[in-house]
């Protein structure tokens, strides 16, 4: 589904991502772990298009229709089915929770200014469908009751869920989750884990940045480890636990 080849990206001469190559299979849930500043978020931004690589290529697509995407704009990549949940809350203030999620459908809908201005029947049908899809996405993350409140009024945990709902409303084929569980309380984490499990059962390809080992072992098929921008190890959770390079990278971080 996703193939990254020797991708590098530096900021002011310092590599944030250095010569990273990895492949994510269709339907796989891939965890990306590593200490703070390892380049995990940068890697996600290179996939979603908010950053362009200095060198290397990013290809994406199901078997047989894979194509290079590393020069495409983020909205073009969104149209191809890539959705991202950012590490920080990036909500659309002043809009309702429902409207926030409806924006997520932009990636797979097309009616523009003209048909909106004329209120063409096709456009109104599409609007109704988008709203139904958005409500369904809110249901999945447990935010249905908040649909008509403004997004700014949400507590932090729910803001994260709202971003997840927005990403789901895009019906993505590759979902990037950047530390979705950070700042969540136990019950919220459990709900998120169950959601990711059910998405996995539906065959969605997911990449997940997460620090909590229990969370990762429960959800991930495979794990990629980044350290100082390099991809130092990849394998199943069991393999990673035994990996020497990983152990030395994490030494002193209190992760066993």
């Amino acid at each position, binding site marked *: 589904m996703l193939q990254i080849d020797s991708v590098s990206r530096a900021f002011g001469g310092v590599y944030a991502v250095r010569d990273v190559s990895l492949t994510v299979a269709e339907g796989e849930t891939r965890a990306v772990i590593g200490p703070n500043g390892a380049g995990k978020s940068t890697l996600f931004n290179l996939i*979603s*298009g*908010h950053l362009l690589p200095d060198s290397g290529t990013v290809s994406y697509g199901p078997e047989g229709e894979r194509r290079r995407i590393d020069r495409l*704009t*983020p*909205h073009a990549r*969104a*149209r191809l089915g890539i*959705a*991202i949940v*950012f590490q920080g809350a*990036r*909500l*659309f*203030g*002043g*809009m309702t929770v429902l*409207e*926030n999620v*409806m*924006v*997520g*459908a*932009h*990636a*797979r*809908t097309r*009616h*523009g*200014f003209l048909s*909106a*201005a*004329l*209120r063409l029947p096709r*456009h109104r049908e*599409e*609007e109704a469908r*988008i709203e139904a899809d958005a409500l369904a996405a809110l249901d999945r993350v447990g935010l249905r*009751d*908040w*649909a*008509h*409140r403004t997004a700014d*009024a*949400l507590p932090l945990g729910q803001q994260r869920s709202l971003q997840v709902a*927005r990403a789901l409303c*895009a019906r993505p084929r590759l979902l990037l989750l950047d530390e979705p569980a950070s700042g969540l309380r136990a019950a919220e984490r459990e709900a998120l884990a169950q959601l990711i499990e059910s998405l996995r059962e539906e065959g969605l390809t997911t990449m997940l940045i997460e620090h909590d080992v229990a969370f990762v072992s429960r959800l991930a098929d495979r794990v990629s480890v980044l350290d100082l921008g390099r991809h130092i190890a990849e394998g199943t959770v069991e393999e990673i636990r035994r990996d020497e390079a990983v152990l030395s990278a994490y030494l002193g971080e209190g992760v066993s």
Partner: protein
Amino acid sequence: MKPSPRWAAAAAVCAAALLAPLLLSETQLPVYIVLVLAACVVTGLSMLMGYAGQVSLGQAAFFMIGGYTAALIALEELPTWLGLAASPLVAAVLAAVIGVPLLRLRGHQLAFATLAVQLILLNLVGQQEWTGGDIGLQGVPRLAIGGYEFADDVAYAYLALAVLGLTVLITRNIVKSRPGRGLRALATSEVAAESSGVPVAGYKLAVFSLSAGFAGLAGGVYAFYFGYVAPSSFPVLLSFEYVVMVVVGGAGTIYGALVGATAVTLLLQLLNNIGTMEGMPAAAPTVLSYAVYGVLLVLVVLFMPRGLVPTAAAWWERRRSARPRGDDPASDGAERPAPAPASV
């Protein structure tokens, strides 16, 4: 269905606007027509400022382009309705073309660039022979659509209102639907909007172009109503006035645009009337229309930074939510979220 205060307000505004041409005096009617045309321009500019987060200090240039387009076509003895129809299109296309490089700029850079565009266009128009130079184009025939000739002020007042109605309708339809959600989204987070599939640059260009189209259409009506266009009818100050109207009314709301245009026009008119009253010193009109106007604007920006309409709406919301449980001390802050679940 019980009429909500929203609908009642809309109905009252419509009724007042429709009755005004019949009630206003001969000297008041031109002011009213100019006000309604300004409201068209300001509605578009308010979308640009409120949703795309961009300021244009050259919006009068598009008003001018619309006016000249209509005048040139009408003076070529082509059908006058063609002139009116072309005026928004030419302005919108021009905006789309210059918008590609311009909208890469941000904040005050873009504001200055649009100002520069207006200065350049004013200069060009003032020097070309086919645009009539500084004198402009005179003797524009009256507008005729399907055999009906718009002859007197009342007819033009209703024409201007129809154009404003169209502008408001289009704006409302867009704001409420998919592209409008994209615009509102990119106003708060361009990054998140992009990753949701909103083509941010394209949307900004579309709003810029649309706002220019509204201005152009208003300019077309202007040309037919006054019968002439000249560079001096479209000064840079007019562009500033449009921005002031947006700010006073509140950017990003349709009512804000209408209220802003009305409030500023009435205020200027009032100050002018006071200044030219008998017994006033000779300097009074200048002092009033610059100094007092300026002070009032500063006061609005200081005490109602979001503009009249959003401030009034927030005040109304607070009053309404405070009434049923008037003794609840927590209900005075708009920041505090009410408990879930929401209504509906």
